[in-house]
C-alpha cells in the first residue's frame, strides 16, 4: 500500500538493470526524485531512457534493482496500482476515438479507476491551458500540441503521485514545445507535483533550468546544474 504521507522520496530507483537479448540497456541506474521535485533525465537516443520509464511503471519488468514509490517497494504492488500512482505520458500523443470529454473520461472505464471521483473536465483543461470550448469537440483533429496537452490533462484526471514524461515535446513544433514545457513547469511549481522528464534535447534542459541527470550507456553518469 502506497502512503503518500510517508517522508520518503517520491521516487527512488536503486541499481536498476535491464537487458534485452543479452544486450544491457540499463546497467546500474540509481537516482531519486524528491517530493515536489521536477527532475530531468537527459540522454542521447538509444541510451535506455524510455526503457527506464517503462521499468519504473512496470510496463517492462527490470532484471535487477528496486523502485520505491513514496517508500514502498513497487514489486510489492500490483502493476496496475503502480501505473495509477506513477503515470507515464508518452512521446507521441495517443488519444482514443471520441470527443475531448470522452478522452478525459476514458481512464474511468477501467475497473481500477472506478472508485475515483469523476473528472472535473473543465478544471483539467484549464490546468493545461486548453479552452473549455474544446470539450465537446472530436479529439482527432486537434493540433499535435493540443493533443499532447490533452494527454497531460487525462493523466492529471487520475491525480497520480508522480508524473513521468517521455520526450513530451519531441513530436511538437517549436511554439507547441514552449507551451508544453510551460505546462509541465507550472504543474510542478503550482501544484507541487513530483515529475521525472526524459529528453535528448540539451536546449530544452537549459530552458527548463531544473536539476538534471545524464544517462549514458545505461548508467547515470553525471549530475547537471541545479537551477531549480
Amino acid at each position, binding site marked *: 500500500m502506497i502512503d503518500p504521507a510517508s517522508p520518503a522520496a517520491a521516487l527512488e530507483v536503486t541499481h536498476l538493470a535491464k537487458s534485452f537479448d543479452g544486450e544491457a540497456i540499463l546497467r546500474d541506474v540509481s537516482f531519486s526524485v524528491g517530493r515536489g521535485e521536477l527532475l530531468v533525465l537527459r540522454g542521447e537516443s538509444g541510451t535506455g531512457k524510455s526503457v527506464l520509464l517503462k521499468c519504473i*511503471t512496470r510496463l517492462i519488468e527490470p532484471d535487477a534493482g528496486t523502485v520505491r514509490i513514496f517508500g514502498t517497494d513497487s514489486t510489492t504492488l500490483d502493476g496496475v496500482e503502480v501505473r495509477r500512482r506513477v503515470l507515464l505520458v508518452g512521446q507521441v500523443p495517443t488519444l*482514443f476515438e471520441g470527443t475531448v470529454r470522452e478522452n478525459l473520461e476514458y481512464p474511468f472505464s*477501467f475497473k481500477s479507476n472506478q472508485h475515483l471521483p469523476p473528472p472535473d473536465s473543465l478544471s483539467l483543461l484549464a490546468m493545461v491551458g486548453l479552452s473549455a470550448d474544446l470539450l465537446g469537440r472530436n479529439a482527432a483533429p486537434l493540433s499535435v500540441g493540443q493533443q499532447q496537452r490533452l494527454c497531460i490533462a487525462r493523466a492529471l484526471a487520475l491525480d497520480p503521485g508522480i508524473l513521468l514524461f517521455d520526450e513530451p515535446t519531441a513530436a511538437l513544433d517549436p511554439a507547441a514545445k514552449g507551451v508544453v514545457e510551460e505546462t509541465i513547469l507550472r504543474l510542478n511549481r503550482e501544484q507541487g507535483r513530483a515529475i521525472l522528464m526524459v529528453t535528448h534535447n540539451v536546449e530544452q534542459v537549459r530552458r527548463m533550468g531544473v536539476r538534471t541527470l545524464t544517462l549514458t550507456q545505461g548508467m547515470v553518469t553525471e549530475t547537471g546544474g541545479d537551477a531549480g
Partner: protein
Amino acid sequence: METVYDPVDGLVKLGLASLLMVVLILLSRVRNLGIDRELSVAVVRAVVQLMIVVLIIAAVFQSQNLFFVLLILAGMQGIAAATSAKRASEVKDPFRITLPSIASGTFVIMGVMILVGVMPLEAEFLIPIGSMVTGAAMVTCSLSLDRFMREMTTNRLRVETALSLGATWSEAVEPYTRQGIRASLIPSIDRLKTLGIVVLPGAMAGMIIGGVNPVWAAEYQLIIFFMIVGAELISAYIATLLAQKTVSLY
C-alpha cells in the same frame, strides 16, 4: 424419390466434369496466367484425397463404430489446427492456440446438438456435419488471429497508453480482441443475411439433388448454418482469448 447410385454413370459424369478442368488448365497455360501447374496439382490432390476419404468414410459408415468417427473428427481438428497455425505465424506457439480454439468450437456445438436431439449419433451425420463445422471454425480461427495481431500492431501505442492509465492487460487489448472476433464473423453473418437469396446453400442443394424433401433439406441447412456460426463464434473467441495471453508489447 430416392436416387440410385450407378457407378459407371457416376464415373462418366466425373470424367466429363474433369474435362472442364483440363480445358481450364490448358487455357491458363495458353494465356500464361502462371497458375496451370498449381491448378493441376490441386485438381489431382482433390481427386486422390477425396477418393481416399470416401473409402475410409464408407468403411466407417458400414461399421457404425463411434470410436472411428471420433478418430476421424480428431484427425480433422489436428489438420485444421495445423493449417490455421501456418497462417498465424506472428503468434507464439500458434498450434497451441488454433487446436483448442477449433476443437472447442466444433465439439461444443456438436455436443449440444447431440444432447438436445437435433443431430443423431450416427456416422452419416457426425462426419459430414463435423467436417463442415470444423472447416468453418478453422477459417474463423485464422481470420480472427490475423485481424487481432494486425490490430495489436497498429494500436501498440494505444494499448501502452491504456495500461499507463490503469487498465489491466485484458482491458487494454479488449477492443482489439473484439475487432478480431467481429471481423472473422462478417462473412458468416453476411452469408446468413443473404441465405437463399444470393447464396444458394451447398448442403441443401446436395440434399435436394439426392432426392430429399426440399423442406427437410432447408431445415437441415438452417441447422447446419446455426451450428457453423456457433462454432465460428466459439473458435474466434477462444483464439483471441488465448492469443492475447501470448502477445506482449516489447
